């Protein structure tokens, strides 16, 4: 297992795209958060705002880059035929998948921590200019505030789970472009579909869709506005990631590479 892990780590480390993609994920996340913070102007008329959720808005786009990174960790091997070499060296396929999941988790975790920290700093520095300051009843974003801590740690977990979901999908599909399309479709389409339906059905779609359920963890001021409770939502996303990895493991075991 240690050897498998070391092999995977070497592969990931030496692939040209890894550093770029992870740096890109962090940069995109923080840039979108900064952009939305700059575009926010809170007036007394507008409703109750959630500064932490606003500060973490970049996750919405950053997750796409993380997903692409996770898809590439395995789809690239299928594209180049490297997978046959990998499986010849490590005949136990589940160990290979576990090792890939472990390196993906570690890297997504690292990128997630950097991105979320950056987002919170951006929020703390920029949101007071948008009118979200203590004078208007919005305390500065601080990690010692327990709902903010929940949102921050939850967002990091969210990115890791998205990476695992994407890894499972890519292992099952074995081709880069369709895998990315399926993952991004799975993330971004359900909210649009929910929009087309009326209330009870809309809420149910948002409760079971990976992104809307998972991002419920970001709510700090008014959790009841979310379709699902914070940790329960992350649980739904965990179920998605687990199911996708399970199917991937089955297919990887059963199929010819």
């Amino acid at each position, binding site marked *: 297992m240690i050897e498998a892990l070391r092999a995977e780590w070497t592969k990931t480390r030496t692939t040209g795209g890894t550093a770029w993609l992870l740096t890109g994920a962090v940069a995109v996340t923080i840039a979108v958060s900064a952009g939305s913070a700059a575009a926010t102007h809170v007036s007394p008329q507008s409703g109750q705002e959630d500064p932490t959720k606003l500060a973490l808005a970049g996750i919405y786009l950053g997750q796409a880059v993380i997903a692409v990174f996770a898809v590439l960790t395995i789809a690239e091997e299928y594209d180049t035929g490297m997978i046959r070499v990998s499986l010849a060296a490590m005949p136990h396929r589940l160990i290979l998948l576990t090792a890939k999941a472990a390196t993906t988790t570690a890297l997504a975790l690292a990128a997630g921590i950097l991105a979320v920290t950056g987002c919170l700093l951006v929020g703390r520095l920029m949101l007071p200019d948008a009118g979200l300051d203590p004078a208007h009843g919005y305390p500065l974003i601080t990690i010692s505030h327990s709902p903010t801590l929940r949102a921050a740690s939850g967002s990091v977990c969210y990115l890791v789970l998205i990476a695992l979901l994407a890894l499972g999908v890519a292992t099952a599909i074995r081709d880069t472009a369709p895998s990315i399309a399926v993952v991004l*479709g799975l993330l971004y389409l359900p909210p649009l579909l929910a929009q*087309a339906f009326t209330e009870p059905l809309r809420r149910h779609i948002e409760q079971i869709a990976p992104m809307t359920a998972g991002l419920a963890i970001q709510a700090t001021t008014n959790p009841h506005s979310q379709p699902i409770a914070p940790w329960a939502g992350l649980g739904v996303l965990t179920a998605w990631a687990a199911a996708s990895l399970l199917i991937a493991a089955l297919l990887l075991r059963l199929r010819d590479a």
Partner: protein
Amino acid sequence: MTRTSASPLSAGTPERTRFTAVLRAEWTKFRTVRGWVIAPVIAALLCIMFAYLVANGTHTDFCTGAGNCKAGHPFVPTGPNGQAVADSYYTVGRQLTGDGTITTQVTSLTGVISTAMTNVAPSQAQQTRPGLAAWAKAGILARPSTRQGSAYAAVMATGGHGDRFQYNYSHDNPGRSGPVSTSSPRWLRLTRTGDTLTGYDSTNGTTWTRIGAAHLTGLPVTVHVGLFVTSPVSFQTSASGSRTLATATFDHTIIDGHTTPNAWHGQSIGARQQDFYPTLRVGSYQRADSSLVISGSGDIAPAVVQGLLGADTAASSLPFGLTVALIVIIVVATMFITAEYRRGLIRITFAAIPGRRRVLAAKAAVIGAVAFVTAAAAATVAISLGERILQANGAYVFPASASTVVRIIAGTAALATVTAVAVLAVGAITRRSAAAVATGIVVFVLPSIIGSISSGGAVQWLYRLTPAAGLSVLQALPRSAQVDYPYTFANGYYPLAPWAGLGVLTAWAALALGIAAVVLRRRDA
């Protein structure tokens, strides 16, 4: 000898035949990969399936009175050209047989605006404050019958748009400007000669200015003529609109012609509970000396989206399915070029056809044609299916003319084509499927998703500047200069005209193609 003399001719032709050969090569590459042929079929089927699901998930209830709701929608009149119209007002009139002239003097036009929003029951909307809607109308009306949606011609004074001659809901001619008051009364005259109705206005009742004329073909010998007052929903103070009522005083009313001998007859049109147009209350009239005071609520104009009606059109179940289909098309368009880089086939392609931009053009033509056919087929089925199911579920679907439906289908096909070509160009730039697919989805699909799930003024800009503007081709809701209404995205109106929106998307695609053409030429394959 004949062969050599023929060669200069054929030497000129290769330029042309070569492109068809390139085209054929690219088409062969496309059709021989099974997945690429199946994917567009799946895209079309997904689009149709989701259009069905979305339409099927929409149910409309319509309530009359307290808590008495059933599936269905309020009554919406259909105008002479098949368009949806508002036709509610109060009229005091009589029957005119043959030619004739009606003259009147409007000496005052005032109004009240409800302080409650339109979505509350009319009984709760009776608290009012003074205020006159800009399109409040008071004047003379002539029409074959008072059936809602029938043809008409009217000359009128308005709250803020001066005197007007309007006919058949969508035609509007301006007359004298300025408001009506006791110190500045307005004379109006409507003349019928055969099928022609002519409107005049005047400040003194002696010198008349012709505003406009209408030929209402098939106008019967006996028509309804009368004075009318109406006042539309005002959006000046609240986004969801407030009901209004206008009151006008008419003096010196004279009908010159063969009329029914009975007295003036007051009639409320289109203010019943089942009528869709929100009215403040049923109008009324009273005589005071020689003058008539009439108050009315409603509008005689094209119908736009009103809260009660929803914003369903023939195209409204299409966007989600179209988004799914676009994602599939993006994958195929990306792989159509990145797969060549991955397998090294691109070197053989460029060795065979050194003109690289020519290869890109041929690829764009092939993938564009595939996307066009796929989207056109999917939209044709999805639109007719969606419309039928929406109607079966009781939703009101704004009538769209055949040309509008054709425009939506052609626009959807063009949207898919331009997107596919743009993503192909992205693929040529990045040479990697991961980067190209992700960029394609994030740039060409994500803005419209963000736009439709979020709210606020920034959304308008998404549909103006980003590739999401291309979705403007789906616009099927009527828009009218004669109706003051917030034509915003939240109310179902795209900020750009259909072809302008497609133009924005095309500009993005042209940018991608331009960069691709430059880098293809400069770079080593």
